């Protein structure tokens, strides 16, 4: 990567090292009081530093590069007036704005589950406001041709990953299996524990599964040349920008996801285009790749992937619906949570890790052959994606736990109110397999929805 996604502005940094305190991989280097640098070999691009940095560029300081120039260097839209800080991520909103005005492109978008419980905060609505309808309406106003959704792709991920887990458990495959939807976690594993990469699920993340489907199935059903598709994803995450640029993410025959915008960038684009977000009436997502179940939407919180997988896995194994859909014992906060779930005759030992530092003891156990979990969910960010590096940045630290709690609650609330709450019950998922993919872990799935990892260790 020639351009780093997450950076520290040398002119602004005061060396307070609050970023270094939250960095899960100790990638931030420098003396106290002096400007800090990010070691890009260690950095997993999670963006927690971007979230915490409080050193802003003052409009009244005349001994630094003008703020307009800095904004341009960072890829920010000119009209945006919000303050900029020392730790930042580069953006692609300008690129997306240009594409949206290009009539020769067929523009499709997908949004992550965590975006819809935080986007509204950028428009002054309360922390954790749930606004999927306004989000879809805003995307349509922006001139996207199809409003698809990462939550649909999350349902798809459960089909593949659930089947993969069952296969490994029943056929003596590599266990424990780790989730692979968090790209910062994957990068970390590739950098620090490449010998354990065979433990990772071979499933792509929902973003990338969505991207691959958009340029194959999506192109087919709309009778569009996939070469003309411009596929955008909106994520609460800065590392997803790295993920979409991974050279192997081109199984559709094209770059599966062309550009990733963060939640903040989407809000900026909406403002730049003069859309009055607060007063938008609710709209629907487009079907085929846009309708989702509650299981898909809980991917945005720690424990969500596990709970979604269990809701489907239980039924796949026992052929009976899970007695209780709400698996409260799986839910929780930063750290390592464990549980034993009785699935028919099987006692499934599962763990949920949030906060990347917390995965290390588990990995060391795996190396020693001492880890007896079957399935482990790993999220880099403290409470899962709702606390991601690309989410609305809080002005007051005291609001942080309130915001995370509210976004999580909104996520579970959304899940509880949806008609369908299990991935395998999504009729569009059933249709996708019937019409196009065949069956989970089948030939087509293997080609489009699964991936390989690469050792990044020196």
């Amino acid at each position, binding site marked *: 990567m020639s351009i780093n996604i997450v950076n520290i502005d040398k002119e602004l940094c*005061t060396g307070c*090292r*609050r970023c270094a305190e939250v960095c899960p991989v100790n990638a931030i280097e420098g003396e106290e*009081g002096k400007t800090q640098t990010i070691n890009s070999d260690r950095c997993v691009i999670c963006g927690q530093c971007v979230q915490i940095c409080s050193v802003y560029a003052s*409009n009244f300081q005349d001994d630094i590069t003008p703020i307009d120039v800095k904004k341009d260097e960072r890829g920010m839209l000119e009209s945006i007036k919000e303050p900029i800080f020392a730790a930042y991520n580069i953006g692609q909103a300008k690129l997306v704005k240009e594409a949206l005005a290009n009539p020769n492109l067929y523009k499709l978008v997908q949004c992550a589950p965590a975006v819809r419980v935080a986007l509204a905060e950028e428009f002054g609505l309360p922390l954790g406001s749930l606004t999927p309808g306004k989000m879809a309406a805003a995307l349509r106003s922006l001139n996207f041709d199809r409003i698809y959704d990462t939550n649909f792709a999350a349902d798809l991920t459960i089909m593949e990953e659930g089947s993969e887990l069952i296969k490994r458990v029943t056929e003596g495959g590599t266990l424990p299996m780790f989730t692979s939807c968090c790209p910062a976690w994957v990068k970390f594993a590739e950098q620090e524990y490449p010998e354990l990469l065979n433990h990772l699920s071979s499933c792509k993340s929902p973003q990338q599964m969505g991207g691959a489907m958009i340029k194959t199935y999506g192109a087919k059903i709309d009778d569009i040349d996939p070469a003309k598709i411009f596929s955008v994803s909106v994520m609460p995450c800065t590392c997803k920008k790295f993920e979409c640029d991974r050279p192997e993410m081109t199984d559709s025959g094209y770059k599966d996801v062309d550009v990733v915008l963060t939640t903040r960038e989407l809000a900026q684009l909406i403002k730049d285009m003069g859309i009055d977000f607060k007063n938008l009436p609710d709209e629907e997502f487009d079907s085929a790749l846009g309708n989702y179940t509650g299981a898909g939407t809980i991917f945005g919180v720690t424990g969500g992937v596990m709970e979604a997988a269990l809701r489907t896995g239980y039924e796949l194994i026992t052929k009976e619906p899970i007695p209780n859909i709400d698996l409260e014992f799986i839910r929780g906060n930063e750290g390592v949570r464990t549980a034993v779930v009785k699935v028919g005759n099987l006692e499934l030992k599962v763990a949920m890790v949030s906060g990347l530092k917390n995965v290390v003891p588990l990995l060391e156990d795996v190396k020693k052959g001492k880890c007896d979990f079957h399935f482990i969910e790993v999220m880099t960010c403290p409470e899962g994606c709702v606390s991601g590096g690309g989410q*609305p940045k809080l*002005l*007051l*630290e005291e*609001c942080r736990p309130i915001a995370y709690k509210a976004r999580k609650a909104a996520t579970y609330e959304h899940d509880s109110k949806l008609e369908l709450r299990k991935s395998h019950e999504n009729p569009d998922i059933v249709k996708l397999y019937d019409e196009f993919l065949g069956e989970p872990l089948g030939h087509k799935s293997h080609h489009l929805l699964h991936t390989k990892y690469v050792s990044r260790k020196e």
Partner: protein
Amino acid sequence: MKTISNSFVIADSSKCIGCKVCEVVCFTVHNENNNVIATVGTVTTPIIPRLNVIKGENFVVPIQCRHCDDAPCANVCPVRAIKQVNNTIVINENDCIGCKTCLMACPVGAIDLLPQYDNGEEVIQLNLKQEGENGLEETGRNIAYKCDLCKESGKPACVNACPQKALTLVNISTEKKSRNKAAALSLLQTFKK
């Protein structure tokens, strides 16, 4: 007769790490009228804090108003925009004419003269215009800003927000009493048999 001295916030330079959280928080709590809610995305005006983190070769520390009991700023303001309210020296921003006399009078440099904003926009001068490229243009009001001890809420936001607990709200009589006590105790030790 005024019996209680004004309170003020002071910083411990040995604890300050220069993070500017105090500046961000100060701005945030003073800009509800500019639609600043909880996130950076709601900010549409420049960040104008009422305390300033000063960084030198070997030190970093925020400097802010001392709420002088005999405030020079209040004493020199030609339009009486600066007053004592409860135990705080407060500038009435709407009366301020931007003459900068208070800025010149303040011995710690606590006052800054910066644009006034309301509802996310610069407040424009009633009649005063400036020469622009296309003739006379509107120009914004500049006013004096300084720490007001968060008079709206009564609790200085910077003190609670500092991650290093470098800022304290000083109560003169409590401070004096605790130092007197410590001094008395140390004298006691000196004279113990």
